Structure formats: C-alpha cells, structure tokens
C-alpha cells in the first residue's frame, strides 16, 4: 500500500457524501419496514 497524493476534490467528496446520504435513507427505511412488519406477526 502506498499513498499517492491526489487531492480529495470537493466535488468528489460532495458526490460521495450525497451517495452516502441516499443509501442511509434507504437503510433507515428498511429498518422502519422491518419494525412495522414485525407488529403484524401472528403466531
């Protein structure tokens, strides 16, 4: 592993962060769905 100085460009960082945010909302939604489904579990 070596480092090669390439700047984290603001654009790249912004792109990565917004992708991260989208995925986060998606995961959060999945959690809520599991929770809500759980309340309808019958024996």
């Amino acid at each position: 592993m070596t480092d090669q100085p390439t700047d984290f460009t603001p654009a790249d960082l912004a792109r990565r962060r917004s992708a991260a945010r989208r995925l986060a909302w998606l995961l959060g939604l999945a959690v809520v769905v599991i929770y809500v489904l759980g309340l309808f579990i019958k024996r």
Partner: protein
Amino acid sequence: MNTATTANGHADPHGEGHYSGPLRWLTTTNHKDIGTMYLTFSLIMFFVGGAMILAVRAELFSPGLQLMQPEFFNQLIGVHALVMIFAALMPAATGFANWMLPLMIGAPDMALPRLNNWGFWLLPPAALLLTMPFFLALFGIGDGALATGWTFYAPLSVQGGMGVDFAILAVHILGISSIMGSINVIVTIFNMRAPGMTLMKMPLFAWGWLITAFLLLATLPVLAGAVTMLLTDRHFGTQFFDAAGGGDPILFQHLFWFFGHPEVYILLLPVWGLMPHVLATFSRKPTYGYKAQVYSFIVIGVLSLVVWAHHFFTAGLPVPALIYFMFSTMAISIPLAVLFFCWIATMWKGAMTFETPMLFAVGFIVLFGIAGLTGLILADVAADAQYHHSYFVVAHFHYALFAGGIMGVMTGVYYWLPKWTGHMYSEKLGKLHFWLTVVSFNLTFMPQFFLGLAGMPRRIPDYALQFAEFNAISTVGAMILGFSQLLFAWNIWSCIRGGEKAEPRVWEGAEGLEWELSSPPPHHSWEIQPVIK
C-alpha cells in the same frame, strides 16, 4: 511517502470546532472525538455494570440472604446484562469503528458526521433511563429497575413494575443509536473508501464491522417491535403475549431471540475483524486466509439469523424444529473453525513477540475456544435439557462475551491506544492486567460450569448447600477480576496524560493505512487521499 501527515495534531485548518470545553464535545462531528466519547462512555458503563455484578457475587458468596432481598437481586442481574451488552460492549465496538474505520479505509471522516454525533448523544440518556429506577426507588418512587432478567420474558415483564417501562424506553433509544451508528458504518464503507481499495482489499476489521452493521439493521427493529408489543400489552390492553387473549408467551421468545442470537455475533464480529490485524502485527507475517475469513464472516452473519430457537429448547418446540435448530446451530461451528484455523495459521512460522495486545489476543483465542466448544455441546438438544437455564450456560456465555467480547475489546484498546494518544502505555501494567484478568476470569467462571452440571439454576439469589464451595470460589475470582480492571483504567489514563512518544508505525510489524498517519493522527484524517495499488 507520508504526505498525509503534514497537518499537525489538533490544528484546525478548516475552522471547525468553534467551541471549546464541554460544548466542543457536545457539538463535535469529528470521528475521532466521537470515537473517544464512545470509548469513554463504554469504560464508565463497564464499571457500572461490573459494580452491579460484584454486589450479586457478594450475595452469592455463601448460602442464605446476606446483603439484599431477592427483588433487588433480580434487578441487578438484568440491568447488569443490559448495561454490559448495550452500554459497554456495543459502544466500545462503535468507538473502535469511529476512530479506526476512516483511518483504515483512507476516508477523511465518517460519511455522515452529524448523524454520528446524534448517535452518540442518545446513549447517556438511555443509560440514565436504564439505571434511574434504582435511584427513584430510594426515594420511594416505583419499585426499582427491571427485574425480569435482560430477556424481558413475557408474562413476567407484563406483570413487572415501572422499571420495565424504563428499560423498554432505554432499549428503544439504544436501538436507535445503534441503528444510526450502523447506517453510518455501512455508507462510510460503501462510499468513502480510498481509490483502489476494493471491498476485497479492505481491512478485515472493516469487514467484521460491515457484517455487524447489517445484522444490527436486520435485528434491532425486531427487538424494538417486540418491546413495543410488550409495552402495549402492559398499558394499552393488547394481548400479544397473553394466551387468554389469543396471544402466546413463546412468540415473545421467538422475537427476542431473533434479535438476541445475532446480537452475540454483533458483539463478536468487530473483535474477530480486529484479531487478524493484531496477530499479523505481532507475528510479523501477513494475515492467513483473508478471503476465507471474509466468507466466514458472511456465512456466520447469515447463519446467525436462522438459529435463534436454540435459546429456548426447553420451551416445548416440535421435534422437527428441535432437529432443525440443532443442526443449523452446529453448522456455525464450521465457519467459526475457519476463523480459528486462520488465526493460528497467521501465527504459524511468524516471528512472534508478546506485547500486551498479543497476550490479550492469545488469551482471547484460548478462552473463546472454550466458549465455542461448550457452545457446540449446548447445541445438542439431547444434552441441552440438562444444561439449559443452569449455571453451565452462564459460564458458557461469559466465556463468549467476557473472554470473547471484552478481552477482544481490551486487545484493541492496547493495540490502538498509542495511535490514539500518541503515547506508549505501560507495558508492565498492561501485562499485569492481562495475567490478573485471565487467572481471575477462569477462577470466576470455571466453577460455574460445575455448578451448572451439579444442577444449580441461573438467576437464583440463594442456593442449596451443595453449591456453596464453588460459589465461594467464583465470588473470590469475581472480586479479583473486578478490581484488576482498575489497573486497565489507570493505564489508559496515564497513557492519555503522557508517556514515551509513539511512532506513526507503533508496532514493528504493523501493516495498514492507519499506521501511515502520525500518532495521534491529524484532526482531519486523510486530507489527501491515499491510493491503494
């Protein structure tokens, strides 16, 4: 070579952190600050949970009730477990993730820093909620904390007092905090890796945490659902767990353990991810079987979701269910054995030295081995009838969660402490701490295997006379174990305060991005992105 270490110590080139003092910590979005807060919180709660169980062990020193009434005893055991699991072990792992993931994958910070801050600050109120009923009871309000054991089994928890409501609320908050932490880990790993770091080049610690995060997302909502149903059963007239209204108490056990079993792996996977790093470092040899370990993590993660009912084999499950859950549980031994194989193969033909982290790693492997092997026989339904609900199980899961979980965390703390603080800790104290911990741990829990075999049920405040000797030994061990942890706290404290300066590459054999940065690393970890070839 080391271009990224130009930004020094705590300089703040971006003008963030407008505050100093307490407000800085309250508002920080820096992954290192948050990691430090998680770890500090975890250490404090480790002593809180430890104090509770030392009181329990003191009561169990001899037959008869000496120090407390059974009601209070029941509160201590349940809250001890919740504190240790949710407020000590899980935050420690999250603290590791916060501190180390960005350093290890070459990211400037976690992907969602503000979520990160919120995730941490939910913890102290939750811990307060969990323990507050103890203090309220002192003032004559309510009847004390949760007295059902950490499992909340209905209908005992439906019958219980105010402490149950506090614990339900606390578990909700702790769950939300963990879910936010997990989401952050997942999106950080998926979006913030340095160029060239493919998933299969990623450090194993990140892999372990990635699986943990997915398990948390899959199971915590189920726990939340179960305790919500409990809450409505208690106060709003539903009858999810009441047979009289068409409900079923066993449904609660299914829901609880659907979370509870993966929870064991949630606690252990970050540690399993950490072990190869430590073993490789101190063996001065690359990790053995990287891919095999990654696949094992995934397989264990998936299997952990389908074995839950082995936690209630005595509840009267149908025969096919018993056989299925027995075999699926046994199947976990295969990927777990792969991990053991890889750990030992990593050490094989290395050039080993035994600094404190390595000692803890080796202690972890041996003692966690006992947990794994006793787990294998617990899976056997035919023998399990005798072990179930007995001290045998108590001993087994403390080998898994203390020797596996907490000693694993201690491995990580000693391994990374010089990186975090910039100082070396005292090797002498660290080794003393290790030997005291290992010897007193075995003194505490080995007798509990025999207590279980002889027929002592768990969670009883008083016991028949034939159990007296082993209980006395166990209590002596627990006291030594508990008080030797003060050495740990002292060692950390002195290391923060000062000591020999740590090199960027703290350990001779250490490999990985985190060792390219200075010790302590700059405020913003990777301003300049490393490229992985």
